[in-house]
């Protein structure tokens, strides 16, 4: 029994790494632009399709094509920020949600029309490979996704702490007016932040491709999990998203073990409880849920 529980816990933590990777982009965008991108899941879907086609057409392993997918998603982010997000930055929360929900509907169904509803998966050499560590069995793809999630978060953290652009991004997140007064081109900060957030979900898409099939609504499932994760970690809080990912991964693994039919309901209940009791998230700053959101 102890070994089984350890296995469940390890699976949960590995799963959490994937969730964290999807969520970090969402939380970064929210922290800086104060916009919740409801189309974030569709960005993931685009990344997965890109990764899939590169694999099936050109035989590029999803891990090999990761750079291409990231660049593509960075460009998608630039385009969407320019066309959709920039015009609504000062609109009411309702209108911002409406615009990104519209984008989500548009992208999802564009995929349905062009790619059909078929499930497509990339069976790479590593997809089903498993390594055993003592009594535990670890899926190689999951371990890779987990390690990359940690590395990317670390790199992002360094970027935000050490570089000029990173400091400008943090400054804009804290106070856009002050940032503007200090001579920071906040328009460009928004553009770059949105593109980086999109590129991060590009990484996630490429890493998920060996694990999950891609289909037009794949984003809906993951984006709901990502919402849970980012709110749990505190919207805009990067380390919070990482820890939130692990917590939700563990919650899902254990509820999947004990009450398999209700595992999704369990983390939504956790979500509701966190929102109602501590909307700033477990690691958020009190009052953050109201900043710029009125």
């Amino acid at each position, binding site marked *: 029994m102890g070994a089984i529980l350890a296995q469940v816990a390890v699976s949960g933590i590995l799963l959490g790494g994937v969730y964290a990777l999807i969520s970090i982009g969402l939380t970064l965008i929210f922290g800086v632009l104060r916009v919740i991108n409801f189309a974030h899941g569709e960005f993931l879907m685009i990344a997965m399709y890109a990764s899939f086609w590169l694999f099936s057409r050109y035989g590029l392993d999803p891990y090999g094509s990761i750079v291409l997918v990231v660049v593509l998603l960075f460009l998608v982010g630039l385009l969407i920020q320019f066309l959709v997000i920039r015009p609504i930055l000062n609109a009411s929360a*309702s209108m911002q949600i*409406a*615009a990104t929900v*519209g984008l989500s509907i548009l992208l999802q169904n564009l995929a*349905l029309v062009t790619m059909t509803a078929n499930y497509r998966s990339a069976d790479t050499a590593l997809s089903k490979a498993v390594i055993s560590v003592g009594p535990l069995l670890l899926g190689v793809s999951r371990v890779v996704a987990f390690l990359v999630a940690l590395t990317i978060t670390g790199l992002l953290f360094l970027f935000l702490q050490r570089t000029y652009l990173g400091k400008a991004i943090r400054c804009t997140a804290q106070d856009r007016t002050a940032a503007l007064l200090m001579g920071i081109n906040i328009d460009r900060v928004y553009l770059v932040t949105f593109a980086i957030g999109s590129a991060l979900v590009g990484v996630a898409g490429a890493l998920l491709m060996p694990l999950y099939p891609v289909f037009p609504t794949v984003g809906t499932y993951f984006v709901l999990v990502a919402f849970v994760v980012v709110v749990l970690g505190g919207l805009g809080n990067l380390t919070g998203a990482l820890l939130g990912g692990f917590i939700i991964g563990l919650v899902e693994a254990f509820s999947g073990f004990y009450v398999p039919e209700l595992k999704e309901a369990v983390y939504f209940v956790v979500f509701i409880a966190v929102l109602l009791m501590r909307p700033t998230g477990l690691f958020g700053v009190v009052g953050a849920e109201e900043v710029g959101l009125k």
Partner: protein
Amino acid sequence: MSATTRSEGSMFSAYRFIPRRSLVVLAGMAVVVGVLAFTVADKFYLHVLIMMLFYASISSAWNIVGGFAGQLSLGHAAFFGIGAYTSTLLFINFGVSPWIGMLVGASLATIVSGAIGYPSFRLRGPFFTLVTIAFAEVLRLLTLYAHDLTKGSIGISVPFRPAAGNFIFRQVSAYAFVALAFLALTVLVSLWIEHSRLGYYLAAIREDEDAAQALGIDAARYKLVAVLISAFLTALGGTFYAQYIFYIEPFQTFSLDFSVLLAMMAIIGGLGTVWGPVAGAFLVTPLQEILQAELGGALQGLHLVIYGTVLIVVVILLPQGIVPSIAAWAKRTFGQRETRPAASRKEAA
């Protein structure tokens, strides 16, 4: 200070009379729909008409919370699903007439909306929206889980036993009249809210909740009243849907997509206005039904590509929605003719 005491118990009293113009529009619409219901022989177009009326009513019901109170709920499918499932389960298991089941379902949805709304209304902006999504998802998952009662993802078929008392009609046009009555009810409730104290409180809350509270408006209380009314009306629509389509299942009735659709119609037409959701539904529904029928499986989803695009364009270019934008345009073009000569006369004098 006295604002609070004066408001006690009087939030439902009409603050201003409902303009006769609105009632004339409503009556005119009723006549047109009545004539169409009798004359349209093509079953498909009759179906489109019924769906237009149906979506217009539910979107109007959503608009009471989403528009008037400015609280963007994306969880209204929960109330819709409660309405549909309650009346259907009562009808199938106990032979209770769906007319009565409809009221039971709506009452249940109202209670649930209070239980959800009371804690959730402390949250603002996207946080409120997220919690409404989560509640609807939990209800959907529970409906799937309780498959002994709800038959889970298999769904429930409503047996075809035509009788007025069973809310099942052989004549499809009868559904058009029921839908029309339903739309008239939601529009009248919306008109009455708009011109009552409640409507003014909600407008104040929507524009600036802190300022409204500073003026002595109990924001939590009035938002709660708005969601209770909205949930009741939405659940009525759930029963209508079950009785008209004859089939319900959790993925459709509790889906996030359905909640989004209601919000989308209201936003496209004009958020927080009485006629906005009606106009939005009348524009969007025929597009959906006709494209789905014409293109079928080959290009399913194309109508949603168009919706998504229209929604983004409306939000960016006409954030007020179509109805208020047309009204403003009409005022500009037709209003000026009256004001210009008056102004020049003044200058001359």
